[in-house]
Structure formats: structure tokens, C-alpha cells
């Protein structure tokens, strides 16, 4: 697929109720809105699979901020996050043929890949201890990172992000913390229990309840977008 095809592709109209077109769209997927006429993520992925570098450039412009935020949330180091971001987009280019729209959305695939790489990096590097210390400091200053961000008035959130965040910050803080440690720090239930000095069964319950509420909340959100 050439550049012209990617550029000229049409896609979803913004700010309207949209119905995802793929037959096996993930039920909890809440995709960001695109400009009118912009190629969809799937169209860009197909172009990348056909080695269209311009499509990768567009995908980068669209999602570098989201993926870098995710990486930063895991490794807490700006320079390392940027290096890793570059490696991840290179992996997206190299591994694009492994992406299948039957298994999910391009953004979900990229986030899963980025999270795995970031957590691997966190575990491998000696900086783990330093990151842990920084995380500890941040946790003490901002017990709830999601809620803290939600109250920053200077940040103009997109509707999508705002809605997702509303679902997450609606959880009890203990459930948010358990999910945060599991998802962004890659911790097991036992590690979370040890870190938070909480019984293992309580951690499991917090994760189960919190994830179910988010999952159900996101399904409802899809009807609002």
C-alpha cells in the first residue's frame, strides 16, 4: 500500500456516536477520536505491514505521547523513556506482520508491546532500585496518581481520556493502587501484598473488583462515544 492510499483513506467522523466496524472489536476498547479524513489506525497498520514508512510516521505522531506516558509511568526516567520509545516504534515496524486485526486494535497491540518492553527494562536495569525509590517518593506525595492528574486544571483532557479517567478514579483508592502496581509496575499479587503490607486475599479481591468495575465502566463508555 502506498502513501497516497494511506493519506486519502477516510475514517470515523469525530464527536459522533460511533460503532466500531470490526466484527471482533474488543468490547472495552475506547479509541481516541480522529480528525475527519485521517486514516484509521488499522489502515496505518496495514500500510506499515506493506513497509510504508510514512504510515509509521503518522502512527508515531498520533501515539508517541500516549506510549511515552505509559513508559514513563513504568520506568520514571525521561531519557530512558525516550530511548525505549524509539526502540518500541522500531519493534512496531519490524514486528508489524505479527499484528492481526482479528485479535484486537492496533493501539491495544502497541500498548501491550510497550508495557512489556517497559516492564522488562525496569526489571533488567540496575536503575530498578532508583525507580522504586522515586516511585515511593511520588506515591507519598501523590497517593493517587490518576486522581492527581485528574485535578490538574491546566491540563486539557480529551473527552475520551476524561471519561476513562472518571471510571478509574471512581474506584476506591486501595483498588486503584493495586491495579496501578500490577499494571504499571508489573507486580504479582504477592509482591503487591508485600509492598502494601496487605493480606494476599485482600489484594486479589481488590484487583478483581477494581478490574471488573473498569471493564464494565468502559463497556458503558463505548455507548457514550
Amino acid at each position, binding site marked *: 500500500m502506498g502513501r497516497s492510499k494511506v493519506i486519502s483513506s477516510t475514517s470515523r467522523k469525530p464527536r459522533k456516536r460511533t460503532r466500531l466496524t470490526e466484527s471482533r472489536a474488543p468490547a472495552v476498547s475506547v479509541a481516541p477520536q480522529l480528525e475527519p479524513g485521517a486514516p484509521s489506525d488499522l489502515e496505518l497498520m496495514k500500510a506499515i505491514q506493506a*513497509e510504508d514508512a510514512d504510515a509509521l510516521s503518522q502512527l508515531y505522531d498520533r501515539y508517541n*505521547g500516549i506510549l511515552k506516558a*505509559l513508559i514513563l509511568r513504568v520506568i520514571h526516567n525521561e531519557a530512558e523513556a525516550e530511548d525505549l520509545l524509539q526502540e518500541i516504534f522500531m519493534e512496531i515496524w519490524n514486528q508489524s506482520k505479527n499484528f492481526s486485526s482479528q485479535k484486537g*486494535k492496533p493501539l*491495544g497491540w502497541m500498548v*501491550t508491546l510497550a508495557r512489556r518492553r517497559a516492564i522488562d527494562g525496569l526489571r533488567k536495569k540496575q536503575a530498578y532500585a532508583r525507580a522504586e525509590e522515586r516511585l515511593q517518593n511520588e506515591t507519598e506525595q501523590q497517593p493517587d496518581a490518576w486522581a492527581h492528574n485528574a485535578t490538574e486544571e491546566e491540563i486539557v483532557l480529551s473527552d475520551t481520556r476524561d471519561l*476513562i479517567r472518571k471510571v478509574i478514579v471512581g474506584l476506591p483508592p486501595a483498588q486503584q493502587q493495586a491495579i496501578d502496581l500490577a499494571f504499571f509496575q*508489573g507486580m504479582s*499479587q504477592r509482591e503487591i501484598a508485600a509492598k502494601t503490607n496487605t493480606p494476599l486475599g485482600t489484594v486479589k479481591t481488590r484487583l478483581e473488583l477494581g478490574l471488573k468495575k473498569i471493564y464494565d465502566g468502559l463497556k458503558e463508555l463505548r455507548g457514550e462515544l
Partner: protein
Amino acid sequence: MSFKEFQNQSRLYVIGALEPEEVEEFEKARRKFGKKAEDYIGECYGLHEAFALSLRPAKASGAIKERLMAMVRVRKEA
């Protein structure tokens, strides 16, 4: 394991929060429920997307994109 229990475990599984002994049990149930299980796990991966979208974007420097695209050009020419 009932399918409802499997659904609970699936949400933990996709974020990597199942303990090793739970994974074994989960994989057994996954085989038992077949396509229904795979479909549900696929849906749960949407949680990854949502967690990423919940964060405030942190725009990368322009130099990173330049380096990336230079590497892609080299790879294409190789």
C-alpha cells in the same frame, strides 16, 4: 472453574497479575472454554489501551522521531 470465574481470572491474566499456580488452572479452563475463552481474553486486552489512554500524554522530543525514521530508512534499504 465456571465461566464467570474464568472471566474474573482473565482480567487478572491480561495484566499479568495471576500467580503461577493460578495460571496453570487458568490455562486448563482456557482450553475447556475454547473460542469463547479466547474471545473474552481478547476483549480484556482492551484494558491495556484504556490504562494507557488514562494517562496525560508525554510528547517525545523531535530528535527521537528523526532517529527512528532514519533507522527505518536504513532498514528498508538493507
